[in-house]
């Protein structure tokens, strides 16, 4: 098979992996001949679905001995199968890298013959890149669950980041859709990798995982509790969410006709950000009674409306922690306010001069005076905060009929 054909098939199967960031990792491969890792991460292009392309994201092979119901490469699917040789893949990576198409390689694989055999092929690819071509760029490797610690150790020494996808948030769903996998076998390679990397340096190797949203009936509460738990153990840097896109027909899965739950995925990411950067706990965002995020409101606005006793907040005296909790204010906005208020008491005009949007925030803050005359009642404010596109849709319908 020609290399074009291979890239088409193996890139196609890998594209459902959401992780693409090359950020947050600096290169440890100092005597390399070509390549570095930019700490901020660099996006090299954006595909027509608006996702960034920063890595050559491919599978080594789509042969697989597993039969996971949600996966396009399950053994019982009749799809064309192929495999890269480690040399072909290394050549492709280095040539894409030289032309500034990508920041590095994101390598995953179906399981060919056995777990250990697959790991061996993956490691061969990485060795050609690192030792023969002197490649110092970014490499993210998906660890194969159930492979020996020996291979995991080798992989962690060659890659910048390793990960293993949990895919489904509970053991029950796994048993239903991916009978050959279990929670412990999925987390095991990451635990091994972390302990191994801690033996060599004080900084553990950075890892991420991915959870499929909407294939099984778990609530947002369960999903966020799981990711918060993984962050707290400092096992993971990042949990990705992937709205389920039906690729197979199965009685245990939503129908192929269903639209992927993109808005829910978006709200989950917003909630994830609140946990990682804004000092929120997962149980502040959702709880067992309200176990799903509100689709009309972003999670922070939702929290604010349920905790109006903290508001209004005076932007001239509140601390950074509280400012970050104002709906519509992000990190940069808060930084600007903290810097500028050293010089004077800020009013509405000052916010305007600094190009700070108060569209959402105006209901919740005081800048010398209250900026909006809407009284502080949840139902009154939420009327203004609900996404206008939803409102507009209703309006147009009214006109048509």
């Amino acid at each position, binding site marked *: 098979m020609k*290399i*074009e054909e291979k*890239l*088409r098939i193996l*890139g*196609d199967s890998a*594209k*459902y992996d959401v992780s693409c960031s090359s950020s947050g990792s600096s290169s440890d491969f100092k005597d*390399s*001949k*070509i*390549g*570095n890792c*930019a700490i*901020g991460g*660099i*996006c*090299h*292009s*954006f*595909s*027509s*679905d*608006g*996702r*960034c*392309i*920063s890595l*050559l*994201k491919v599978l080594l092979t789509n042969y697989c001995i597993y039969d996971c119901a949600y996966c396009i490469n399950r053994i019982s699917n009749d799809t064309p199968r192929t495999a890269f040789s480690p040399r072909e893949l290394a050549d*492709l990576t280095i*040539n*894409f890298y*030289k*032309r*500034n*198409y990508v920041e590095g390689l994101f390598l995953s694989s179906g399981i060919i013959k056995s777990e250990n055999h697959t790991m061996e092929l993956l490691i061969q690819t990485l060795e050609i890149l690192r030792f023969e071509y*002197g490649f*110092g760029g970014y490499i993210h490797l998906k660890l194969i669950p159930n492979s020996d610690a020996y291979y995991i150790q080798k992989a962690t020494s060659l890659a910048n980041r390793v990960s293993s996808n949990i895919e489904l948030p509970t053991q029950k769903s796994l048993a239903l859709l991916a009978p050959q996998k279990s929670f412990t076998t999925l987390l095991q390679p990451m635990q091994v990798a972390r302990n191994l990397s801690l033996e060599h340096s004080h900084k553990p190797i950075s890892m991420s995982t991915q959870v499929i949203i909407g294939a099984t009936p778990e609530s947002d509460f369960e999903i966020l509790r799981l990711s918060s738990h993984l962050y707290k153990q400092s096992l993971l840097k990042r949990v990705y969410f992937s*709205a389920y*896109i039906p690729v197979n027909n199965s009685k245990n899965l939503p129908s192929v006709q269903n*639209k*992927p739950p*993109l808005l829910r995925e978006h709200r989950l990411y917003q909630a994830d950000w609140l946990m990682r950067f804004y000092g929120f706990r997962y149980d502040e965002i959702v709880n067992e009674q309200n176990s799903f995020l509100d689709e009309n409101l972003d999670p922070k606005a939702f929290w604010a409306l349920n905790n109006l006793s903290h508001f209004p907040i005076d932007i001239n005296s509140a601390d950074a922690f509280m400012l970050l909790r104002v709906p519509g204010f992000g990190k940069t906005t808060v930084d*600007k306010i903290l*810097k*500028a208020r*050293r*010089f*004077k008491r*800020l009013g509405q005009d*000052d916010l305007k*001069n*600094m*190009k700070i949007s108060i569209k959402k925030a105006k209901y919740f803050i005081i800048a010398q005076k209250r900026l909006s005359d809407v009284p502080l009642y949840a139902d009154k404010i939420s009327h203004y905060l609900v996404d206008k596109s939803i409102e507009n849709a209703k309006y147009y319908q009214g006109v048509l009929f």
Partner: protein
Amino acid sequence: MIVFIYDGSIVGFLNIVYKVYNDKIFPQVITKTYTSKMFDEVYEIESDENIAKRVYDGLQMKFHQIFFDKIKHIFLCDSISHELELLKYIISGFKNQKNLLDLSNPNIYYIDSLEKELFKMAHKFKGFIRFVELDNRIMYATISPKYNMLPIVKNHFITRFKKSDFIIYDDIRKIALCYISEIAQILDIVNMDIPKLSIDESKYQNLWKMFFNQVSIKERENKKLQQSFVPLWYQKQMLEFN
């Protein structure tokens, strides 16, 4: 109106700063091209190297490194007329440097965000520049950026390419960043003749285009989002969009 005319160079601008302090005149307009109007009080500013050097040293001595670098970066934004704002910025800095942190002052905010725009653009260029491999193994790229990018992206590409050679040619300013045998220079080049491409070039270009097209998930198609990340203006020089 008081009008200052200068040649658009850094040297010329530093002479303006000197004139403002020496003759105590503050311009209302600073321009490179001027058509005469009635009642205008026009001053032609010469580009005196010695005066420029004195002002430059003065700035370096008086200003904190962060602000001094900022002033230098603003010079790279050469396609818009920022001179008057920059002059105001320098004057308030000479009065009291602490003022330069006050973001609620529109002048300070303008300069800060102009620098940010420059950095943002440079960051995009780090990802969006496309190289081709030449016959002699040198990697080559052409760019037409709005601002002068090369001094800003220089270090990034040197650490990226390490032991390989590359050339980035800015076809608007007619300058090129050449990194050959681990020595980097920015040279004036009026006419760039590109030698033949290597034999593998078209193969990898096709592979990349193919990869770019199939990596998109059609259930999630969102062209508007794509364009907000890669404005059309960048797309012109990106292989996969042509």
